[in-house]
């Protein structure tokens, strides 16, 4: 498939340091619009660090330093004039453990829109709640209990609520760090289905420890190893005839 559109994110010679220690080294890759990009690799190879670079979540950790560039629609996200709240609205994140706020389902979903001033009127908020929950495949389950405590939901539902909460602010890119690792197999498959649906409108980058999951959900896959991007290939190729011996060895369980 020829790339009709330019990539939404371009990463150029990215280095990342925790204090003196180099966690990412010379990362170069393009993230394509409305595609699912999976990041795999052994524990500690830098997947989460890389993901957090994409919306500057690492900035909250003291002593960290970035070199190189990350361009979102051509804009350098590390440029001094960048508004962090706006960046994180455009590039949303879903975490490993579902982390709904101890509030009602409704309040969870409207938290972002209220905070960034996207909507204030009840009718607008209602509209956002329905749209977001529908997109997160949760509307039919919760539409009659919107005023119930979000934390009373099942774990898989909580994770979908967190996705809805993020969708409520209309992001362009969704980052997911092992979004299924706390979920049972059924809830995992539901999230995977959801990813396939969200792909129609959003760009998704997912970190996963489960190689089969990467194979199932993604269009492109990157393998990280000791802070370096070893291979970045179309997923079908990655899992049938990878280019690098290291990828081959990792995928076939010979190391890692």
């Amino acid at each position, binding site marked *: 498939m020829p790339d009709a559109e330019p990539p939404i994110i371009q990463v150029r010679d990215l280095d990342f340091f925790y204090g003196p220690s180099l966690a990412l080294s010379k990362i170069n890759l393009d993230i394509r619009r409305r595609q699912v990009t999976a990041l795999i690799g052994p524990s500690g190879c830098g997947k989460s660090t890389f993901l957090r670079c994409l919306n500057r979540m690492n900035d909250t950790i003291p002593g960290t330093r970035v070199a190189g560039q990350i361009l979102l629609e051509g804009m350098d996200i590390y440029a001094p004039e960048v508004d962090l709240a706006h960046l994180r609205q455009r590039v949303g994140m879903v975490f490993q453990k579902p982390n709904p706020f101890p509030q009602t389902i409704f309040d969870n979903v409207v938290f972002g829109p209220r905070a960034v001033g996207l909507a204030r009127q009840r009718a607008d908020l209602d509209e956002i709640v329905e749209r977001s929950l529908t997109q997160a495949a949760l509307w039919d389950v919760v539409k009659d209990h919107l005023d119930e405590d979000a934390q009373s939901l099942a774990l898989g539902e909580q994770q979908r609520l967190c996705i809805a909460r993020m969708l409520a602010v209309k992001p362009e890119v969704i980052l997911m760090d092992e979004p299924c690792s706390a979920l049972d197999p059924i809830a995992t498959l539901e999230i995977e289905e959801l990813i396939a649906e969200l792909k129609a409108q959003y760009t998704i980058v997912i970190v996963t420890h489960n190689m089969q999951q990467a*194979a199932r959900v993604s269009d492109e896959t990157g393998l990280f190893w000791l802070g370096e991007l070893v291979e970045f290939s179309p997923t079908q190729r990655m*899992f*049938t*005839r*990878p280019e690098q011996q290291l990828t081959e060895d990792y*995928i*076939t*369980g*010979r*190391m890692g």
Partner: protein
Amino acid sequence: MPQSLRAAFDREFDDICDKLVHLSQMVDWAIQRAMTALLEQDSLTAEAVVANDGDVNRLRFEIEEACIVLIATRQPAASDLRSVVAVMHIVVELERMGDHAAGIARIVLLMEDEPLLKTLKKFPKMGELSRQMLADVVQSFLKRDPEWAREIAGRDARLDKLYHATIDRLLKFMVKKPDAVQRCTYLMWVAHNLERIADRSTNIAEQVVYMMTGDMNELNV
């Protein structure tokens, strides 16, 4: 595949390879016996080859089934997946080689005691060449040697040459001796079966190349 499944996969794939070798030996036996039956006009041996074909088929399905189970339970990827897929193709080729051997044996039964022809001289050579290709290509699979596989596929040209020379002579013979048409036709079928056996070794060689490199190409085109 997670590292923890690696050893189990290796063990199960080794078992499959052992069975594949066994299948190739059964097929080699069938080719060798079919040729003996032809050259010695020995219908008992020919019948044994035909009877053996059912076992070849059964072992092929057994190996295919084991491959399917391996895919379902271990979810192999990359070279592991290509290896399992290669085995599934290779056992089909082996089974069909068995059919060709049984085909030769059936012709021997049809020919009964009709006298053999002098053109038969080239048949033992064709039989030997195709058996050697089969033995080597199975070794190239076990040794995971795509270069050797390519070399083996290259030998197919010699067999093709022998085949065309044989057909030529049989045709000329038929023109000269119309009463030998039936015998000549039978022998053409035999030659055809031998030529196909060698072709199938070439197909196996292609699978070895695919397994090792991921390249899906026809060799000898």
